């Protein structure tokens, strides 16, 4: 009798297990469908904003944030996406959240220039110059080439964002942009390394207005 009870229990548990797996699989499929519905169309706004300095449109940025946040809910190990969400939250006027996401991005994806740069600029805007300098220091350890190739390897996060007009990736523009930001970061670093709190440094810092970039 006991054996029958155990067999019935095993049978029922197996049924629950199979049903549970099906439910999980079904919801994964639904989440993927949701991602397709959340995806901004066309996906060229960040390209325009970063490369061509298009006007800031918070509604559009919110759309990207929704998409990438949901992407992270479905695939929490897509570390590239944390950096993009952090970037979005900065422009949505929520720097604490931006810092949180950028820190996660740096922790799990340390070979990528933009995450260090973006977090450094947020700290710079908060007048945390010491933190800015140390982050830029870390950023410069990464070869621009590594960062550049890193972007184009990011199939689900950066590649769709890097699609410019007609969904074509313009490599030259992306490379030029990366070079310009590297150079301006070097200038910022030099100013930060000048004698602390000097009149000259304060004036130079006041003239700077660095902004965050998604890539």
């Amino acid at each position, binding site marked *: 009798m006991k054996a029958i009870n155990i067999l019935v229990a095993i049978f029922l548990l197996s049924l629950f297990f199979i049903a549970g797996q099906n439910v999980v699989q079904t919801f994964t499929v639904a989440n993927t469908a*949701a991602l397709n519905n959340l995806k901004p169309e066309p996906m060229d706004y960040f390209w325009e904003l970063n490369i061509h300095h298009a006007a800031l449109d918070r509604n559009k940025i919110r*759309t990207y944030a929704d998409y990438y946040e949901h992407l992270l809910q479905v695939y929490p190990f897509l570390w590239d996406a944390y950096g993009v969400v952090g970037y979005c939250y900065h422009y949505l006027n929520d720097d604490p959240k931006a810092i949180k996401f950028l820190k996660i991005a740096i922790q799990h994806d340390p070979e990528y220039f933009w995450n260090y740069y973006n977090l450094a600029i947020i700290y710079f805007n908060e007048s945390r110059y010491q933190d800015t300098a140390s982050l830029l220091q870390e950023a410069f350890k990464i070869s621009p080439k590594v960062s550049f190739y890193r972007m184009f390897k990011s199939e689900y996060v950066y590649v769709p964002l890097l699609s410019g007009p007609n969904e074509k990736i313009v490599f030259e523009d992306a490379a030029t942009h990366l070079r310009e930001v590297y150079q301006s970061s070097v200038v910022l670093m030099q100013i930060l390394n000048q004698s602390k709190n000097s009149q000259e440094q304060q004036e130079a810092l006041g003239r700077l207005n660095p902004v965050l970039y998604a890539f």
Partner: protein
Amino acid sequence: MRFDHLKSFYLSTGIFAIFFITGFLLSQHKLLWLDELYTQHTAIDADSFSGLVSLKFPDGNKNPLFYVIQKGVCNIFSYHMPAAYAHELNRTRDMPSQIILRIPSNFYMSLALALIFYFFTRFYSIFAAFYALSAALVSPMVWMYWVEARPYPLWFLLTTAQLLLFCSTFVSPKLKTVKLLFLTHILLALTTPTSMFQISIITLMGWWKGRYNAKQLGLIWVLPMAIALFYYFFDYISKIKTYMFFPNLYDVVMPERIFVYVIYALTAWGLPEKYKKITYNGFFLPVFFLFLACGFTVLFVDLFTKNSDQGFFSRYLIYITPADILMFSLASFDLRQWSRPYPWICMNVSIFLGGLVIIRGLMTYREILASAMYLHS
């Protein structure tokens, strides 16, 4: 345990408040889409009250009740849709617009759910009320159109009111519902041309079951039909293409519920007399199937007679959902009632019916999740 009017009323008011607040949260997370923007831009913002009543606006549906109420709400909040949104083809994010434009629809849907709850606490039991509410809340159409600045939630509310008023004459024959039913029919006629079918079916059923005398039948049919017909001649109804037909249809006609109705029909009509423990709810089965048949008739007529074309969407049959919710709840109670003398069968019937609600809930959740409707922040 049945509740008296006052207790039922208080409980239902609480349910209404909870759902109304829920509706505000849903509004915040659902972006405005093309049809809502179009209706607001071309009809509500563009026309005066008199223009809305006198058929001047370009929306396909000319029945004015929804538009007049919507304009009233916009006037109260001094709201005008920003001009830039008029040409938005994609979804539009604008929190004040999302909330203000959806206040009426949120009110309609919350009230419809509260009415269902009231009906069942008043005439059945609190358990029945929560079961019916669950049956409503797992229906995809409720979530898809809860907050939608278009006439569908109003249509849902008025159909719910119409069916509950009709039901209550069977549950409690002393109740005088004719005047309220007349008012509901007038409002329905001012909301949608399809109300012609609904009004006629309910009148026909009232006549068949001998619930109303000739004068009362005339009252609930003649004037509402005249109004609905008047507006029908000015309505622009597109020819409907059948792409995505079945996925849309399953939002309204849920296969597992049809299965329950077939079992219900068998227990009601197919079993020997001694097993017929069915209560007074059997009348609702023909109502549901007539609603369904009329829905298909409308689609069929549209499919072959009109000129332009557009896809078939489940919202064209939204009025079937309140009938389905009531039918499913009533059929479930009757099946349980029927099986009560046999505890083993009763237990299985309860598990089966409860399981259907849970499975439908999961399916609806999956569908709403996949549509990403409420995933915007």
